[in-house]
């Protein structure tokens, strides 16, 4: 089973190397999708392995797969398949294959896998910094001043933020060394076998969470997110919003477990509550009068990360399970939404909300998925996000976070109003006399199958997800479940 770990790590790098070696080869078009599929397969395989035989450990304990990481690996695979397949442009689109682009995406995937599979927090940090490196040029790949600006802000803000996390890890290591056995292994830290100096541990963990919050897009460290998401190519935005944030959030979840084990729930609860509510507030305030629909989607990501933070702050089996399921649902939906948004941009030629109207009437192939995805993002049934938001709120209330949850509900209403208003103005409305330019051919558009699949999965998630239930339960147990 350890083989799967190595495959999921090594194979993307090999593909990347090959793609860089032959950047113009026709197969590179499909290389990233293929890699994504393999990641998905590895994820499922590891899930089964973990379900049957417990955590899989290799590389002398540096790499370790438990239920949580296996589940998230699967999520990464699934979302990556959606994003890359949806971003696939067939030959007839007339674009030359771009091996460097594919290679970077493969490296990006590899970095995320490493982050998920590493048991050593240091390596986790290295991997997350690695995602910044891999995506830097992807964000800038559209060229032009705006893309450049986005890339610069992304790299500077991201690496500075993550540097803070490194400071935290350093202090944590110092604490362990002071305690007698220096280690950065999450397992050792979270099973409560070591007792650290609380003062130092507090500082260390707080800094680490603050740093990772940057990549997780939690306010007030979120500033890079709207720019990067709105400028990156659609599949990349999808990947970043769909899983990169979640991977960073995964790091926060690990930190939270350690902190709860060492210091009790107070510290993390405070930090996550502040971050979550602040993120919701920022999202609500900036969605209200948003002009640009890709930025709108980016802020909705901030909103969802805020929800996740609230769920993590609440803790407890219900909220945590809801958080994990929410990661999957949000990833799939947001990835497809960014793909659709990219197509809208390519046919409408503008990312301004004001310039796009009556999509349902004029471009049903774009309008219908856009509307459906929005309904999913707004957390309405039958989509799974309905259940997970419900679980987070109820779970939070059960854990005594009544007032924060109440505030969150108010902010959610504002977010809903804003998103609904913008969506209505984009999709609804009468057909114009002139059918606004030549309707783009399906071939240029790319297929709706991945989007339909992703949304369908999100839809059945709430009802038919009981195969997942036990996996989720295990993952919650990994996170220290009831604690």
């Amino acid at each position, binding site marked *: 089973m350890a083989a799967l770990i190595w495959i999921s790590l090594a194979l993307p790098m090999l593909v990347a190397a090959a793609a860089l070696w032959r950047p113009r080869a026709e197969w590179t078009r499909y290389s990233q999708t293929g890699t994504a599929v393999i990641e998905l397969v590895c994820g499922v395989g590891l899930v089964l392995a973990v379900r049957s035989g417990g955590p899989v450990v290799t590389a002398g304990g540096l790499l370790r797969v438990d239920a949580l990481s296996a589940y998230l690996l699967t999520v990464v695979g699934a979302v990556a398949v959606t994003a890359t397949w949806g971003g696939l442009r067939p030959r007839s689109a007339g674009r030359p294959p771009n091996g460097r682009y594919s290679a970077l995406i493969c490296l990006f995937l590899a970095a995320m896998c490493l982050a998920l599979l590493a048991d050593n927090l240091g390596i986790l940090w290295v991997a997350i910094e690695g995602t910044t490196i891999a995506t830097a040029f992807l964000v800038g790949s559209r060229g032009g001043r705006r893309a450049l600006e986005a890339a610069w802000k992304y790299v500077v803000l991201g690496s*500075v933020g993550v540097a803070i996390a490194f400071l935290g890890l350093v202090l944590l290591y110092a604490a362990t060394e002071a305690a007698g056995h220096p280690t950065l292994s999450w397992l050792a830290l979270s099973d409560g076998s070591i007792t650290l100096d609380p003062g130092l541990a507090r500082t260390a963990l707080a800094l680490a969470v603050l740093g990772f919050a*940057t990549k997780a897009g939690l306010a*007030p460290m979120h500033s890079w997110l709207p720019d990067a998401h709105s400028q990156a190519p659609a599949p990349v935005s999808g990947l970043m919003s769909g899983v990169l944030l979640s991977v960073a959030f995964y790091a926060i979840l690990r930190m939270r477990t350690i902190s709860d084990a060492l210091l009790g729930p107070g510290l993390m609860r405070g930090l996550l509550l502040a971050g979550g509510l602040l993120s919701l507030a920022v999202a609500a305030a900036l969605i209200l009068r948003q002009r640009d629909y890709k930025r709108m989607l980016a802020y909705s990501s901030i909103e969802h990360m805020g929800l996740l933070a609230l769920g993590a702050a609440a803790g407890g089996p219900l909220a945590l*399970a809801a958080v994990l399921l929410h990661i999957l649902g949000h990833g799939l939906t947001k990835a497809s939404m960014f793909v659709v948004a990219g197509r809208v941009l390519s046919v409408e030629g503008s990312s301004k909300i004001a310039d796009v109207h009556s999509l349902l009437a004029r471009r049903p192939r774009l309008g219908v998925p856009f509307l459906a995805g929005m309904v999913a993002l707004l957390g309405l049934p039958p989509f799974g996000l309905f259940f997970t938001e419900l679980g987070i709120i*109820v*779970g939070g*209330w059960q854990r005594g976070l009544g007032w924060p949850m109440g505030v969150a509900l108010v902010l959610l209403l504002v977010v809903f109003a804003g998103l609904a208003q913008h969506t*209505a103005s984009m999709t609804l*409305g009468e057909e114009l006399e002139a059918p606004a330019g030549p309707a783009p051919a399906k071939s240029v558009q790319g297929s709706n199958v991945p989007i339909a699949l992703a949304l369908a999965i999100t839809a059945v998630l709430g009802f038919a997800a009981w195969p997942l239930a036990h996996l989720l*339960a295990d993952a919650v147990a990994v996170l220290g479940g009831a604690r």
Partner: protein
Amino acid sequence: MTAVETGLLAQLALATLAVVAALVAPPGRRSLAAGSATVLLGLAGAVTGFLAMTGGTGAIRVPVALPLLPSLSPLVLAPDRLGGLFMLVAGAVAAVAALFAIGYASGPVASRTGWSAFAVFLLGMQLVPAAGDVVSFLLAWELMAVGSAILVLAEHRKHREVRSAALWYTVMTHLSFLLLLAGFAVLAAASGHTDFASIGRAGIGGGTAGLAFVLLSLGFVTKAGLVPVHVWLPRAHPAAPSHVSAVMSAAMVKMGIYGVLLVVLRLLPGGPGWWGVLLLALGALSALYGILQASVASDLKRLLAYSTTENVGLIITAVAISMLLRRTQVTAVADVALVAALLLVVSHAAFKTVLFLGAGAVQHATGERDLDRLGGLSRTMPTTSAAFGVACLGAAALPVTSGFVAEWVLLQALIHGGGRENRLVAVAMPITVAIVALTAGLALLTFVKAYGIGFLARPRSEGAAHAHEVAWPMRAAMTIGAVAVVVLGLAPGPLAVTLGRVVGAHGIESAGLLGLNLPAVGALLDPIALALLALGLAVPLTVVAVRAARRRPRRVVELPWGGGGIRVSPRMQYTATSYAEPLVRVFDDALQPTRDLEVSHEAESRYLVNRVQFRQSLSDVVEDRVYRPAIALLARVGERARSVQNGSIHRYLGFSFAALTIVLLVVTW
């Protein structure tokens, strides 16, 4: 498997069937296929509801990923008697509306999406009262909301206002959902369970219960369309296709009532007095405000929408009265009030369905919805006119209709509830009586206007002049509804007794010719006997009149007298607007109309008036005074907030730095 379980599964199956039919049937046959499937869906709901209402039991459990975790129970569908009643109402209304839609649906409503959404909407609505736990309740609730929202914006291509209507509707619906979510979360947190039975057993009290009650009742009355959270109603109902607005107004709104009853009877029974006062205030205010707005409205469907607010207000008033009386140990009268509430629910469902369907038929036949452009339809559309007329009698609470019975029971409860024992009740009762009476009076005017202006007199527009009677399914649907209005009004006894059983009320008896006897308040109502007596007097008169008419028939003259043999021009008639003018003046303060008068004089002398222009527009006061400012404020906040992301990387780094310093200081302190 019990009958109820079969019924529930049948509804799921039929809904699926309807969706499939909508998707696969060829456009020509789609309405018939999907329509008949939805009719069956509604009937299934009605039957299941009846079974559950008369004591049938059964439960269906659906496992869900999250609920498999210990702290949430699986989705449970287990209607109790009360739920059964509401399922019955919803199903019956749905069936009639669907039958109507077979003939009515056209354009986007008849599309695949339209019919599928309709089926989903109906399914969700019929499952709300079946839900046995929080999650399934909210799930059904949101299915209902999503389905109805899609239908509300069905016409979005043609009419611009539909978009804003849909927006208002979705946002208000979401507000109600979030309130419910919060309220249920409070209950779940307090009781540790999410199924209603356990929550009810938990016996939550004190501040927690109060908080939950406020949140839940606000959420439910938002859906029920009470003032001040009614604003979506007068927008969504005109925007939606008529069969949809019929279901929304006659059945969906009732789910809000069901929710309130669920809270005060099952989840948090025996709450403190201020609960009743709160509900009473909301209900009475809504009744008065709603009927006032309705009486001055000239858009037929807007008028009906506001009258829904009024009726719901009356229902909530009845519920609140029963709560108050139960606290003051006048339980017998409290039971009567509760039964009155349920009677109001049933009768409103009956006549409001017909009214909205009638409005739809009129719109279908004339293309007009504005009363000021209608008229003379009683000759061109006899069936519609008759059905609409009967329903108007019901809405005006005149004998012998269901509306009269319901209001009679309510008034009986009111005048017998009073007493010196409890100061609160002693003050509340007369005020309530007065408000209910004024409401009834204005309702009378409203529906005399609706029928008299819309169906009598002369056509006021081309469309009205060339109206034609509608297709048979629509006629059939309206007739069924009208018959129901009369039958329920003639034979209230059995119905009231059943309703009494539903809420475990005592002292509700059937007497005389299917009449209704309330020994608790020493009052008896036997509509059939009354009708017989009236006939006994009317028949001889009619005979005399008819014989006279045969001896000397009326001579038809070209011109009406009209104060001097005037020429006939429809424009000389009173319109709905002018009809309500005196009322607008009387209630100037409450309605706050905006008038402007332009007088332009002749050039020669300013004593010679050239032309006088008078404009008057009525808008919803609550909307102008509460919602508009709030929206404007939000918009301003949004504008301000945009400066947070002003693009300067230094500012962004500043955020991070500030966060870093704050966290460092906090954790090391």
